[in-house]
């Protein structure tokens, strides 16, 4: 009996030691703050496919925590045990707009930013019946009569892009908040709204099929998916907005483990299979280091704050 007890004690004490010595000692949970099957979820799954090659024997588990524009998932990452066995995906602008609107129970300091993976630039789309064919025509029409522009909910990437565009072009939109890209597509294809600001992946198929017209891409460079669409900057309005999807870990993890995690992300970002999977899913890659991505997020937060201060939601 005593021997058995001793053995048990030894096991109990040995386990944490073992965990420290050999990271990862158990499956790594990747928190995905959206539903299974969505684009964030797919990003996590193709990341895992590539990551397994670099960490032999390591297991990854996706945990979907959807709800409240990602807020529930972001909070779960911030709250997670900081032993390196839980990391998570974040997406912009929601991650900072919850902080700005004072609803989040986290700040950017609650996370260690590992880096960015992919992005989905925003665009301006109009119905195919619309007389508007370029930004100049769009702004001219907007100045004559406020255009009804559909965006995803308040505080989303679409909304911030619309606000940025309003500021730059000196126009004011009749903003129409919707429940998401399904509604936005129906509003544009059915010619119910004058325009919609939404993500590239949500409207590219319709532009190719000729059921809607994309008049500008709000990105520095043209997209390979829609090479015929001019960027806003090319048309004289330097407004850029993109939805990024990157990885973070809870703050306070051991430095050696963080170094391993950051290194894994860099490797996956350059992995040929991962690149091929991104292409298959029409995701544009935007690899950013942890430090760069952190700077980007901070800048985005300041920008979002300025819109919130002017007109809080």
């Amino acid at each position, binding site marked *: 009996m005593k021997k058995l007890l001793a053995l048990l004690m030894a096991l109990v004490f040995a386990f944490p030691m073992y965990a420290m010595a050999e990271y990862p000692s158990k499956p790594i949970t990747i928190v995905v703050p959206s*539903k*299974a*099957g*969505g684009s964030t979820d*797919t990003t996590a*799954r193709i990341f895992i496919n590539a990551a397994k090659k670099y960490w032999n024997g390591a297991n990854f588990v996706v*945990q*979907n*925590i*959807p*709800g*409240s*524009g990602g*807020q*529930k998932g972001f*909070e779960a990452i911030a709250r997670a045990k900081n032993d390196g066995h839980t990391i998570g995906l974040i997406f912009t602008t929601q991650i900072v707009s919850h902080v700005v*609107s004072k*609803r989040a*129970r986290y700040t950017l300091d609650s996370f260690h930013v590992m880096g960015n993976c992919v992005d989905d630039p925003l665009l301006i789309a109009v119905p195919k019946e619309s007389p508007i064919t370029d930004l100049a025509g769009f702004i001219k029409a907007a100045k004559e009569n406020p255009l*009804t522009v559909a965006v995803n*909910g*308040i*505080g989303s990437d679409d909304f911030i892009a619309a606000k940025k565009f309003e500021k730059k072009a000196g126009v004011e939109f*009749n*903003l*129409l*908040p*919707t*429940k998401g890209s*399904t*509604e936005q*597509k*129906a*509003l544009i*294809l*059915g*010619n*119910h*709204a004058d325009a919609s600001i939404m993500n590239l992946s949500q409207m590219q*198929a*319709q532009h*190719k*099929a000729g*059921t809607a017209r994309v008049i500008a891409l709000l990105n520095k460079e043209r997209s390979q998916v829609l090479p015929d669409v001019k960027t806003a900057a090319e048309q004289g309005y330097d407004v850029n907005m993109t939805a990024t999807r990157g990885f973070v870990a809870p703050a306070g993890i051991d430095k050696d483990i963080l170094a391993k995690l950051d290194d894994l992300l860099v490797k996956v970002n350059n992995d040929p299979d991962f690149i091929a999977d991104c292409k*298959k*899913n*029409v995701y544009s890659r935007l690899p950013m280091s942890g430090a760069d991505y952190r700077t980007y997020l901070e800048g985005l937060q300041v920008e979002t704050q300025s819109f919130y201060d002017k007109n809080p*939601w």
Partner: protein
Amino acid sequence: MILESLSSLMAPMPLLAVLLGTVSGVVIGGMPGLTATMAVALLIPVTFTLDPLIGLVLMGGVYCGAMYGGSIPAILLRTPGTPAAVATALEGYPMTQQGRAGLALKVSVIASCVGGVFSTIILLILAPILAQFALTFGPPEYFLLAILGLAGLVSMTDEKTGLIKSLISGIIGLIIAVVGTDPISGMLRYTAGLTDLYDGVAFMPVLIGMFSISQMLTLTGKKSVVDNAELVTEIKREPLPKGIFKFISMGSFTGTLVGILPGEGATIAAFLSYNIARRRSKKPELFGNGNPEGIAAAEAGNNGCVGGSLVPTLTLGIPGNSVAAALLGGLLVHGLIPGPELFTTYGPMTYAFIFSLFIANIIFLILGLYMAPYFARISLTPTELLIPVVCLFSVLGSYSMNNSVLDVFLCLLFGVGAVLLHKTGFSLGALILGLILGPIAETGFAQALIMSRGSAAIFFESPQALALWLITFLLLVPPLLNIIKKHRMKSA
């Protein structure tokens, strides 16, 4: 192209995938808390590694199977497996209590199959034209559609639940639907600082609580759902009632039409066709007390949604409902971009997928007809076994929707609340209707007024809007006349 797609479908692997998908769909649909949306979403990563066709037909099978599967526990135990089966429970369960579960199951499976096949034919032939029709629906039309649905509150009235009580139930539902983020301004309403409530009161836990938990609480005083075992085994060979096909076709038509509209779900389709059947029935007094006509309309309605919802999904890339949205994700993963190309370049694959839906419908028809007498025996399960099992699944199901513990408490709270409401004669169906339609009506109303810059004229401009006003009017006037007549008779 049609032949090519048929031959690619008639191979052992795709057929096995359809069979597997349909059977597991029926099982998933039959469990409270596991919905078709969830099943299809979970399948997407699996289909990653499969041949695109196999993956697609697997998901299609699950979709068809789950839509039917939800009706089995709804009829036998009054615990709808999917939200779309709530209307089925209203008629099916009283039939089970009368020992006519066998017939109820038979009507449900036949109606499901006819609804599914009808909508798939429509999808096959008319998809591109109907997609254009769906696009003419804008925010004002959605608002009016929700109002049309809410007009059903009046038809939910019977002797047990008076008009006033069913209106109160509906308004309770609308009030609960107010909780959450304001869709237009982004303000929080009555969320009590709980992040879990920012998206509103989650629908599935409420549904599971109101039907499954409350039903289990009600059953605690009984030995089994049906006390007389002979009743179940004796009349299982009851023939189909006359004139039932009128209601099946009515349901199929309504279901397909509602399914085509992007964003409208099978639940609304089922409720709408149920209410229309109730209006059009020669025996409306039987509704609420076990009328197979109600089951026929509701089940044809929710399965009619399957083909309908795929119309805008395949032609425009706009998913008709949440299951179709998950299916769309599956299409995109395989590089199949919705649009005209799907019917030309990728034609063989698309048509094979559509044909697989026919097979799925036939599979669950055979399964349902063959198994109905055995399923019916579930209603004889002793409550000491039934209650713990159903409660376990209910709690699991309400937790697993959003991984939220709050949802479990909500489910239990609504369970107790529903027992009180039911005992005092308030209609639970009316409450659910208010809860589903509240957000649609609100968003549609606000968006329409933003589009028109504040002018209410937008609700009367399009022909679609006028047609919806007319149907609402037609649904409301006869019950109103009835009430006046009754009132006069009383006073005379």
